[in-house]
């Protein structure tokens, strides 16, 4: 069987999900065919301005991934392509792909843009949501991968009328090819990952919004483009009708969502509350604080990590107005283009407000096209058209070997899509582990050009970053200035230095000008340094001959109001970078061997799922569980939100884990110590009195969470007040109690969304609603009340909320400032008093039982493990991942990964997806025999060292220790694999005997001297 398996995977859809799956698989030893129907990858994320909750520039964090895909040896990118059919079975599929002609020879196109400049036909630019126009020959956006033009046949004059061909006449590269024909490919793959994404709901069918009739009513996607520097108004916040700067903008939530009318969708789109907050905050930034923003909503659904805090900041600090009201109709306020919004307040007052613009927060939906793709692939979809995924296999479709990720499997945000993308790649990798590395080729670099002793020849590339830098800093003058600096022999400016074509330009300029140092003056090294190091390495330079001048994050963004000063500062920063670059030296790579075993801490569903996937991928895995049995919190859960039986699943999972030949389960076991570093960890575990050491190359943290114990609402004082699953248990054990009961109430957000735990615990609304439904099913006449603050049945869970209402569950919204009061009502009951949110009157509810949805907290001991591994935890005690958006399961500490409740409260299928994602990332590491680690480490000059030991004392990582040297006493010695390059030892050394590679004292001094222009020539002084 495994003989027939094929070591390649097809990924359908080139958005962020497909990109992540493709990269994970290509880095894990599989050949990937990435199929994208448009001319370039990037998907919807490429058109977003910023991303919540951190407000990172969307393109800036996406672009490195685009480039990586474009350059990856093991990713075969098929653009303008569509899947026609799928045959075969898991492990061995035949896929037919139709590639539409681009009418441009991609091997010749140099993306100079001459064709588009000369093309006489203008059409609506879909990338800018139709707010601007593009040519019939175009690239979708400046950072597109591949950066190759394409002729849009439907609008090309030549294809319409048989003549024109202006592009052909002017193309300097002879790249236009009108004779290109459609191509059909038959590709053999072992697995398929479907990641076609979603479409934004189109509100033009509903007259009440005025969309399409009132020009200043725009969709949220259009608003993203309006905010974007590469958008139709170059990032100037103006409204479409008259390009006036708006003073007042309204957002209307739930457009096309949470609406059961035929033209809408009953489900919640899950992302709109957060993106509306983000857009309001970004718009306020653009407008310099004067802008009035109002978000009209029903329930504020900020259930993700860091979301509630963003909501609070927007509300309390930034002055975004949140108006709890759904608006019937948007009307023109006059003939000025202003818009009138009439709404009722919570206390029933009718208010009319005038806005300059209204943004419709449109939901997510699955288009006919995506549905047709699902049909072609033979995978089932639900009544909302989302792909049917397994209850406990969140990325498995109805067809074995075909996996799904992203919004096609239900509405979701970017981090969740990225997690699922990694999970899908883990599933595919597990299926195909026997044929890993059979179809891939290794990346090789040209041999390094020696630079030692050569005179520095520096090239400087100054980035406009769209208008992020170019809108403030006078980039051309900065470039001119850079060219005059000592040792600089070449300088250029680029619109987006990170784009794929610019990488080729940089390599070309290195060769042409014999550059031996390169400076990029751009965004930030935090996200982009690895890309440029790789670029110069491909041109034969040691990657450490690169220097970054941060002229965006630390310059143009913070000095927006002072363009001249920002321009001067950019010059200063480049002068400093050039001074340092002159002294840069090649650094040898540091390779360490990787132990191929994994350690998973925590035997709940997340830990077990991660362990099982790793084991299936062929890695020996140790699973540590503190309790005597595996299962964790899932042992108490009845069903998933969509009704799957958790008990049976956990039983099966335990069995698979315990019987797997590659898994060693250590239950009743605690972690005593963890030493080592990526690829080489040694953990000391303690089972009873027995201690044992385990060697492993990676760690997955899956330490889980727990429900908090409340000290309010009579909890602990009345046996009738319970929390979480306790009420269900009671009624199961003693059915007569339910029989006798007439009323049951739930209170939500007990402890969550309050100062001690300011986050949303995410799963409680769904849990209480499900519990209420079960009670109503058992006893239809039971009165059931749910007292909530915002109903957060996100995504398709909304159907549960609808069903509960339909069954007669009464929902009453309370304010945190006026919590419900619970008192004993005689011997046999409770009396709950709460103010009704519609009537504004107190309601006194007699209830037999009260169930509390208490906050979910990290487990005890999480902090200690964090300290052992030197990984960060956030203010709330949850592990803090490397990047909330694009690295949701990684830490900045290499070799350590995270999944499950210890990362943030989440439902079971999300925990599983995250576990599989963590397994995918872990496998990507463990499959390597050796890995390169950052060689920017400390070096001891033994001649100067006096063996005082201050360095050893000051190092938090045990990366520098004293050793005995015969005849000399003690001398310091480096353990480079443990070194984080922080420089504390160098600072502590009284003898200046310790230096940091790449940050040598002489280099830093040179930069500082260059910073103060009055100083003497630092190079000469250092010499």
């Amino acid at each position: 069987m495994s003989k027939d398996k094929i070591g390649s995977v097809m990924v359908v859809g080139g958005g962020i999900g497909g990109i992540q799956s493709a990269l994970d698989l290509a880095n894990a030893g599989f050949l990937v065919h990435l199929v994208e129907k448009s001319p370039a990858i990037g998907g919807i994320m490429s058109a977003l301005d910023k991303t919540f909750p951190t407000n990172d520039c969307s393109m800036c964090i996406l672009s490195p991934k685009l480039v990586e895909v474009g350059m990856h040896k093991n990713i075969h990118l098929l653009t303008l392509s569509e899947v026609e059919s799928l045959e075969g079975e898991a492990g061995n599929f035949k896929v037919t792909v139709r590639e539409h002609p681009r009418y441009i020879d991609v091997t010749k196109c140099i993306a100079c843009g001459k064709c588009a400049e000369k093309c006489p036909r203008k059409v609506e630019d879909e990338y800018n949501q139709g707010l601007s126009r593009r040519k019939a020959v175009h690239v979708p956006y400046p950072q597109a991968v591949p950066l190759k033009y394409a002729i849009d046949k439907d609008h090309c004059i030549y294809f319409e009328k048989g003549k024109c061909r202006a592009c052909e006449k002017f193309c300097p590269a002879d790249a236009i090819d009108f004779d290109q024909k459609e191509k059909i490919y038959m590709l053999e793959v072992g697995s398929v990952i479907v990641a076609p994404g979603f479409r934004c709901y189109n509100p033009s069918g509903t007259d009440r919004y005025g969309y399409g009739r009132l020009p200043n009513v725009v969709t949220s996607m259009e608003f993203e483009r309006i905010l974007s520097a590469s958008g139709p108004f170059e990032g100037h916040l103006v409204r479409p009708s008259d390009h006036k700067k708006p003073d007042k903008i309204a957002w209307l939530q739930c457009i096309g969502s949470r609406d059961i009318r035929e033209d809408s969708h009953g489900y919640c789109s899950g992302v709109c509350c957060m993106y509306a907050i983000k857009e309001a905050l970004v718009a306020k930034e653009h407008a310099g604080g004067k802008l009035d923003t109002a978000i009209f909503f029903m329930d504020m659904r900020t259930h993700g990590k860091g979301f509630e805090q963003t909501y609070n900041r927007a509300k309390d600090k930034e002055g975004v107005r949140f108006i709890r009201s759904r608006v019937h109709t948007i009307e023109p306020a006059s003939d000025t283009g202003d818009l009138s919004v009439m709404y009722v307040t919570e206390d029933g007052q009718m208010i009319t407000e005038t806005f300059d613009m209204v943004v419709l927060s449109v939901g997510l939906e699955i288009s006919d096209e995506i549905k047709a793709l699902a049909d072609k692939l033979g995978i089932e979809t639900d009544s909302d058209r989302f792909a049917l995924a397994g209850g406990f296999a969140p990325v498995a479709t109805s067809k074995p070997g075909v996996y799904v990720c992203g919004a096609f499997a239900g509405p979701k945000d970017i981090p969740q899509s990225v997690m699922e993308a990694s999970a899908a790649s883990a599933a595919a990798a597990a299926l195909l582990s026997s044929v890993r590395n059979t179809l891939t080729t290794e990346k090789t670099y040209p041999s390094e050009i020696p630079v030692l002793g050569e005179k520095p020849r520096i090239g400087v590339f100054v980035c406009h970053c769209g208008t992020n830098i170019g809108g403030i800093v006078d980039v051309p003058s900065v470039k001119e200035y850079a060219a005059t600096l000592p040792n600089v022999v070449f300088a250029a400016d680029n619109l987006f230095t990170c784009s794929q074509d610019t990488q080729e330009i940089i390599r070309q300029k290195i060769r042409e000008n014999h550059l031996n140092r390169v400076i990029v003056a751009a965004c930030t090294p935090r996200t982009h340094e690895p890309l440029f190091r790789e670029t110069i390495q491909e041109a034969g330079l040691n990657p450490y001959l690169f220097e970054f001048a941060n002229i965006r994050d630390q310059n143009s963004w913070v000095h927006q109001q002072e363009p001249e000063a920002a321009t001067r500062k950019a010059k200063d920063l480049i002068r400093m970078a050039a001074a340092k670059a002159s002294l840069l030296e090649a650094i040898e790579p540091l390779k360490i061997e990787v132990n191929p075993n994994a350690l998973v801490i925590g035997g709940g569903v997340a830990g077990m799922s991660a362990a099982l996937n790793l084991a299936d991928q062929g890695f020996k895995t140790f699973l540590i569980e503190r309790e005597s049995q595996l299962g964790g919190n899932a042992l108490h859960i009845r069903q998933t939100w969509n009704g799957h039986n958790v008990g049976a699943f956990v039983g099966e999972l335990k069995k698979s884990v315990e019987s797997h030949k590659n898994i060693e389960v250590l239950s009743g076991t605690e972690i005593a110590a963890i030493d080592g570093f990526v690829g080489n960890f040694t953990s000391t575990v303690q089972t009873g009195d027995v201690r044992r050491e385990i060697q492993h190359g990676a760690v997955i943290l899956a330490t889980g969470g727990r429900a908090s114990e409340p000290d309010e609402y009579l909890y602990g004082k009345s046996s009738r007040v319970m929390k979480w699953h306790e009420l269900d248990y009671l009624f199961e054990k003693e059915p007569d109690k339910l029989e006798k009961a007439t009323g049951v109430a739930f209170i939500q957000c007990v402890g969550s969304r309050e100062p001690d735990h300011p986050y949303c615990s995410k799963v409680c609304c769904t849990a209480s609603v499900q519990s209420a439904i079960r009670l109503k099913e058992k006893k239809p006449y039971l009165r059931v009340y749910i007292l909530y603050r915002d109903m957060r049945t996100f995504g398709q869970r909304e159907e549960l909320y609808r069903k509960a209402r339909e069954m007669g569950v009464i929902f009453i919204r309370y304010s945190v400032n006026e919590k419900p009061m619970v008192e004993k009502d005689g011997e046999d009951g409770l009396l709950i008093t709460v103010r009704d949110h519609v009537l504004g009157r107190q309601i006194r509810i007699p209830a037999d039982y009260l169930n509390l949805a208490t906050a979910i907290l990290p487990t005890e001991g999480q902090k200690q493990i964090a300290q052992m591994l030197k990984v960060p935890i956030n203010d709330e005690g949850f592990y803090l991942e490397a990047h909330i958006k694009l690295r949701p399961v990684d830490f900045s500490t290499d070799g350590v990964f995270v999944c499950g409740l210890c990362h943030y409260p989440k439902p079971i299928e999300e925990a599983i997806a995250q576990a599989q994602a963590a397994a995918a990332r872990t496998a990507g590491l463990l499959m390597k025999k050796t890995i390169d680690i950052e060689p920017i480490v400390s070096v001891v000059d033994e001649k100067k060292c006096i063996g005082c030991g201050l360095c050893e004392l000051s190092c938090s990582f045990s990366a520098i220790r004293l050793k005995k040297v015969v005849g000399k006493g003690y001398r310091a010695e480096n353990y480079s694999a443990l070194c984080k390059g922080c420089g504390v030892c160098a600072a502590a050394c009284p003898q200046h005997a310790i230096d940091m590679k790449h940050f040598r004292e002489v280099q830093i001094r040179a930069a500082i001297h260059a910073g103060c222009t009055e100083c003497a020539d630092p190079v000469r002084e250092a010499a």
Partner: protein
Amino acid sequence: MAEAAIRISKEKKSIFMDTVKEILPDKGNLNLCLTCGLCSSGCPATGLENMDPRKFLRMAALGLDDEITMHPWVWLCTMCERCLYACPMKINIPRLVYEARKLWPREKRPKGILGSCDMALRNMSCSAMGTPEEDFRFVVNDLLEEVRANQPGWENLQAPIDKQGAHFFLSQNSREPVTEPEEMVPLWKILHLAGADWTYSCTGWGGENYCMFLADDENWKKIAETTLQAARDLECRYYLNTECGHATYSVWMGQKRYGIKADDIEIVPIVRYYAKWIREGKLKVSSDWNKDRKIIFTTQDPCQQIRKSFGDPLADDLRFVIKSCVGEENFVDVYPNKSNNYCCGGGGGFLQSGYTEQRLKYGKMKFDQVMATRAKYVAVPCHNCHAQIHELSGHFEGEFHVIHLWTLIALSLGVLAENERAYLGPDLQEVNLPN
């Protein structure tokens, strides 16, 4: 506002809303409320008597039956269905209001509505003014003779009554034959010029149905059945009403709601035929009279005929007719419009219920909407809309006129006689008079 706390009793008791759910398809979705407030934000009755649709539904849902019973707001809601049109949960609040009207003892319901319902039950005329069958015949024939005698060119004008096998059955709103008979004539002329084969009937001639507003199911059904049966007895193919929104709706909806047998006859709005006849060239309307005058016209979409029954296609016909008569450029639409237009406040029995102050407050929204168009005339194919908007113009000093479509069409055909211009302003008294 320290209202009493609401005490939920321990014992299960049936509440009013449960009984309403039982009679509605999908239980009227009454349980589904998200309390989002969208209904109230689009409702002109919001705030009247300190009530709004969301609040009313919430009170019903919480079982506050005592407070709902006899609440006057049920007579201030016109059941125009603008809430239902937009409600994300498709909740039938108007039907809840209709059923809540029934919580009032019949004799305590507003006298104006009650009287009109009872009047229509006095004889087989269905006329809310109680005008007996033969009186109607007399008025029609008398007037017809007068027109034939006095208006040159109309010697052959017809106003058939009880004509067996006519294509169209036309029910007549009582207001015209009883108080302003000459208003009937323009429509006769239009039908004549269009070559329509039509008839009145003595039995069931009156188009109104105040029993519907009274929430008197039995008699709503009875009246709808009587008038429809009259049409069927005459073997007519189509049931038309003069431009009266609720009359058309009461028969159209009554037929569906009570399952009145009517396989052989279709209930249709007259505006659809105005448009059809203009498109077919049968009514050669011309807007030339307004070319230089540039008098601005707007319209109202009667809820009963547009949002609640025939929808945007009929609203488009309505605009086509008016534009054909006044010139495209002289028509300025209200906003919002068509199925999403505001109720004027004349429907649902509001005009007859005695709550004048509240009705004018309700209508202020419509008044402002008309004023924003700067129109001098509102052409509207509905009696209640006509009366309400006419009153709004006077009350709030809008100085715009409200006219029936028949007046406008006859004017544009050049057949509107001097004595048929009661609702036209001084500016149009002399315009396009017949030679």
